[in-house]
């Protein structure tokens, strides 16, 4: 069974902390994505990567950075966490031959910044 695994289901961090959200996929997918989901706003794309060491800004990259040192792992970094970054974070992956099926998502990380 193919999987996208996010390392934490729930996280509570303090304002100003540096936060790492980890995502690993076992499908040898080229493309990986980070979204956040907020009520009334749907899923918004933060960053994506279509190859190792490549990254592209999504629609809301401010306050975030990413790292993709290996094909299977895509990390989202909150440089200095703020309360407006409290959200559900979703990682996804895809491959070029998967247009019919879109992405495979992880189960999400619920981050609370206090």
């Amino acid at each position: 069974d193919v999987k996208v695994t996010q390392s934490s289901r729930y996280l509570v961090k303090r304002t100003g902390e540096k936060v790492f959200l980890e995502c690993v996929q076992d499908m040898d997918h080229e493309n990986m994505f980070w979204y956040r989901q907020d009520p009334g706003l749907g899923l918004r794309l933060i960053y994506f990567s279509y190859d190792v060491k490549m990254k592209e800004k999504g629609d809301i990259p401010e306050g975030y950075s990413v790292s993709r040192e290996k094909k299977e792992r895509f990390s989202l970094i909150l440089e200095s966490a703020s309360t407006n970054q409290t959200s559900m974070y979703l990682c996804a992956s895809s491959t070029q031959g998967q247009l019919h099926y879109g992405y495979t998502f992880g189960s999400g990380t619920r981050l609370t910044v206090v």
Partner: protein
Amino acid sequence: DQQVKQNSPSLSVQEGRISILNCDYTNSMFDYFLWYKKYPAEGPTFLISISSIKDKNEDGRFTVFLNKSAKHLSLHIVPSQPGDSAVYFCAASAALTGGGNKLTFGTGTQLKVEL
């Protein structure tokens, strides 16, 4: 600029009846459209998709209709079941320069199927 819109935040339907979820888009470059279903505390799961060159795709109880001239698509669920209660996201796909695709999501519709 919301390129994919779901104007109904919620929908309530009786078990056994038809559920119709709607979605509008603005970008003519989208080449695939997809519907995802999401339960609380889980990631979205793929439900059904349609190519921009088709106007209908059916999979069991789920049918997606695409009206390209109106830039509108809809998801029909017949018959609706209590287990269908979830948030449904419409998504539109555009090709990435480096390969693969990028999905733009709507804001979601919470479907509640009542007994």
